[in-house]
Each structure stands twice: as C-alpha cells, then as structure tokens.
C-alpha cells in the first residue's frame, strides 16, 4: 500500500471493535485534513459497500464499520478463504478501499449551512458569564461566535448533534460544575474550546449563549439530520422577534 502511506501522515490502524465492527484509524489529532480523509473513505464505503457491511460511522480521525460476520464469511472470495478470522477478511477488503485513488482529495462540494441564533436573554442565559470569563462584552462574544466558520467533524452524543471545529479560543469557557438537568432543544453552547447545538432536550453542562429555532434532528426526513459530517456551519444572529416568526413558520 505504498500509495496510501504517502497520502497519510500516520500509519493506518485497523482495530477490531468486537466481533462485528472494525475501527479504521487514520490519524491522531483533530484537524481538517484528517477529517477530510475520514469523510472521503466513509463515502467510498457507502458508494460501494462490500458484502456484509451494515453501516459506517465516521468520527474525528476514524471510520468505524459495523458488519454482519455471517454475510462477510458467506461472501468470501477464493483468495479470502485462507483467512483465519472474519476480521482478517474485513481488513483485506478495507485495504482495497484505501488503495483506490487519493483519499485527501478535496472531495465533494461542501455544503455551508446557516444556523440562525437568538443570542442572550432567556435563550442564552450564560452569555454574560462567557463574556465576563473572557473579558469581553456580550456583543463581542456574539460577533466572534457568529464570525467563525465551523466544520462538522462528526455527529454523535445525540441525534443530529454536531461536533464542530474552528471556534475562536477568545470565547472559550469551562463547563458548569453541575450540569443542568434539562437543556432546551436548539440551545447553542460553549464548552472549553468547543461550540455546538443541543439537537434534542438533554441534561448538559455547556454554557448556553443562544438558541436556534431550526430543528437539527429531523426524524421525518430521509436523512434525519440537518447537518452532515463534512458540512460547514455559520451562525447568524437573529432577534427575539425573528426567532418567534421563524418558529411560527413566517420567516
């Protein structure tokens, strides 16, 4: 696999996640380059799944594949019959995807999703704390948060919940010591150097700076998430009135 060795900084690791899943680790730190390779590989598996593949779960630096061991075994080609384990067959199949072309190509056209946010007030009870913590005014926090472009590195934790990369450290703030028992759906928060949007109501410890009227989890849709891994996100400040109009479907 000379080609892949030159494409990637770190050696690719393939690790069993039990007897029906594999983790393909493509790097060790959060960066856009590694994440692009993750998304490209994940897309390859989805476009042309091998027999037995159930689904792919991309994350910051790895792609996991859940598979059906029985279907993998039954579909073994002649060359795969000598494998001692089904996992070995899966590894061999994964290798063929790694060797197909450039994994670090810029890939398909990225989508940019705009998320309207009503900052502060009842929707963002911790905006003042985040400002104070960083020696900024609330308006400055909003300007910095809404001024960034964020990459969706992965979805997890809750349906449609994005792990976003790219927040300015100037507005970083520690989590609450005691998590709130319930955080309303749509709340936009900051935790350490991360920002994100609570896609459904859950308990949580993030500093809440605003709220979006957009639904991130969309179970009635074929793709049940507003955001997809690899998307870019931009936050757009809206007023309380616009927030209400949006919820009423008039904006």
């Amino acid at each position, binding site marked *: 696999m000379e080609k892949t060795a030159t494409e990637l900084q770190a050696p690719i690791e393939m690790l069993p996640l*039990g*007897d029906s899943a594999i983790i393909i680790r493509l790097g060790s730190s959060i960066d856009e380059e590694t994440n692009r390779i993750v998304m490209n590989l994940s897309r390859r598996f989805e476009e042309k799944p091998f027999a037995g593949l159930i*689904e*792919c779960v991309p994350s910051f630096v790895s792609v996991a594949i859940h598979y059906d061991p029985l279907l993998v075994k039954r579909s073994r080609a002649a060359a795969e019959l000598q494998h001692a384990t089904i996992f070995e067959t899966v590894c061999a199949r994964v290798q063929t995807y790694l060797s197909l072309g450039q994994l670090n190509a810029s890939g398909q056209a990225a989508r940019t999703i705009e998320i309207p946010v009503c900052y502060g007030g009842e929707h963002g009870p911790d905006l003042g704390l985040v400002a104070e913590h960083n020696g900024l005014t609330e308006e400055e926090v909003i300007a910095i948060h809404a001024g960034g472009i964020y990459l969706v590195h992965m979805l997890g934790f809750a349906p449609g919940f994005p792990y976003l990369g790219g927040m300015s450290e100037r507005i970083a703030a520690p989590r609450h010591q005691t998590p709130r028992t319930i955080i309303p759906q749509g709340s936009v928060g900051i935790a350490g150097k991360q920002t994100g949007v609570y896609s459904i109501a859950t308990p949580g410890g993030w500093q809440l700076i605003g709220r979006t009227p957009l639904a991130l989890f969309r179970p009635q849709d074929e793709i049940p998430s507003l955001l997809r891994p690899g998307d870019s996100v931009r936050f757009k400040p809206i007023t309380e009135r616009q927030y209400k109009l949006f919820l009423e479907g008039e904006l």
Partner: protein
Amino acid sequence: MTIKVVRTGLHVTVQDLGRFGFQKYGVIAGGAMDTGAARAANLLVGNADNEAVLEITLTGTELFIEKDTLLAICGARMSVTAGGELLPLWRPALVRAGTSVKFGACQSGCRSYLAVAGGLDVPEVLGSKSTYLRGAIGGFFGRALKADDVLAAKAPSLLSERMEHALRLGWNGSFALPHWHASHFAIADNLADPIIRAMTGTHYELFTEASRAGLFSQSFQISVQSDRMGYRLEGTEKLKLAKPLELLSEAVANGTVQVPADGDPIVLLADRQTTGGYPRIAQVASVDIAVFAQLKPGERFRFERITQQEAEQLYLDSERDMRMLKAAIALKFNAAK
C-alpha cells in the same frame, strides 16, 4: 388480534432488532436487549425474526387479549399466567379472546419478549420499529406503553395461519399449546454464576497491569444505575490507565466496555450513544450480550477472556442454531398440512 394494556409494571416498550444506517447522524441503534429471545419469540409464531415485539421488563405487566391471539413469550424465567393458568414460555400459544395474561414472579433474567403472529402493527421510523425514547420516535408513538394502550397486529403469514389452525384443535381452557418448545435458547434458565465472554478492547494495553489482570479475575456487580443504555459495574478494584490519556470520540458498539475516570466500567448496550470518548478496555462477545442483558442490578458475574476467532465462531454457531429453529418450525407446519 388486539391486545389491551391493563398494567405496564416497570417498563414495556416495542422493539425490533434495531435501527441501522443512521448512526453517522447520531441516531442510536436501539432494539431488543436480548435479541436471541426476541428472535425466537418471532420465529415461534411464524414471523420473520425482525418483527416488532414487546420488551417487558421484570414483573407486574398485565395484558388483556381481546381476540384469539397466537403469541409466544421468551426471555426471562418468570411465571406468566393466562386466565390464571401457568402459560409455558418458549413455545407458541393460541390464547383465547377475553383472557388476561399476567407477568408474575421472576426467578431469573429480567426481560421477556412477547411476539404475536403477524408482528405488532406500528409504523417504521427510519427503517425500524424500535422505540427510541429520548428521540421520541419509533415503537408505540415514540414512548413506553401505559395502561389502556391498545396494540394491533399485522396480517399473519401463511405459516402463522397454519400454526393457528393446528392449535385451534387443542384448546385446553384459556389457551392451546403444541407439545414442543424451543427452550434450548432459554439463557435466563442458566444465569447462576454467569460468565460473560469478552475480547480485549482497543485500549486494553493502556491500562495498568493490575487492571488488565483484574478485569478477568475479579467479580463485578451490576449497579442500580443501569438501564437500556448501559450497565455500570462495580468491582473490588477500580480500573486505571497506566498514564492519563485524552481520547477523541469515536464509534462504539453493542457490548463495548468503557472505563470513565472513576474506574468503574460501563458496558454499553442497545440504547448506547453512537460514539464515546472513554478508553475501551474490553468488548463483550456478541453471543453473550443477550446473557448479560438478562442480568439484573445487584447480580454478579465474571468476564472470561476469549479471542477474536473464538467470538466469531460462537457467533456463527448461534446463528446456525437460530436457522435450525426456523427450519424446524417451517418443516413441522408444512408437513402437518
């Protein structure tokens, strides 16, 4: 058929074998905790193994059968009565209209699966009928069942109809039974001193030597803070990393054993999050997840280390058993015709 819920007891939800294809969007897989029992219950009434069933936790559930219903109950070892008479588990039963089915004392195990001929009639959401409570989707209006809910079944398969026809000749009070059963799948009958087979996890080598050895030598107790999402374990020794480690979140699987900073492992189960960020010390073999899922808070067990190859072989063997059950049932009723 229709079934009316009289009392739910602790917790009753509709489940199938899980929701797949949406984990990349953070949508949990869900599904029956003891898939072996859920599948067997379906096969015993002539359904495909993935039909929607009721997952009944512990005791206290009472159901009223409004029309004659071909059903099967598999899973926990508990006394179930129909019309006051003991209803045998792990075999189909044609239950007469107007009968109350009560889930009573639980000897071992904690989850029962009730399948009805045709499968429960609930809509598919994102390719599955499993209830996802936090997402409020799937199953019966996205929620757990409560008193006065009424469940209906889809049209039965030809096989189900033949089974029902054959049983109709042998009414004996409130229900009719065949002579055979499938109790060789009854995991909950053998839960004394359970051994759960597991492989080492992706971060196993990063734990201290004592923790690595301790994982397979000490006995663990299931904490009361356990649910469909995961079981928290309490052992005599806390499990510790050899040195501190910051991990990036990545996918987890059913049976992944992760260790948060407090050193008490958590075994992730059906309603697990799709991704996790704690070090993974072990992974329960697929075949033993059903065994594990029948353990109750307060019960103890030990892990036994097996290899990848052994886990795969156990999985293939259990799938062969399940296919044999299916074939045996089909043969019985095609021959009887």
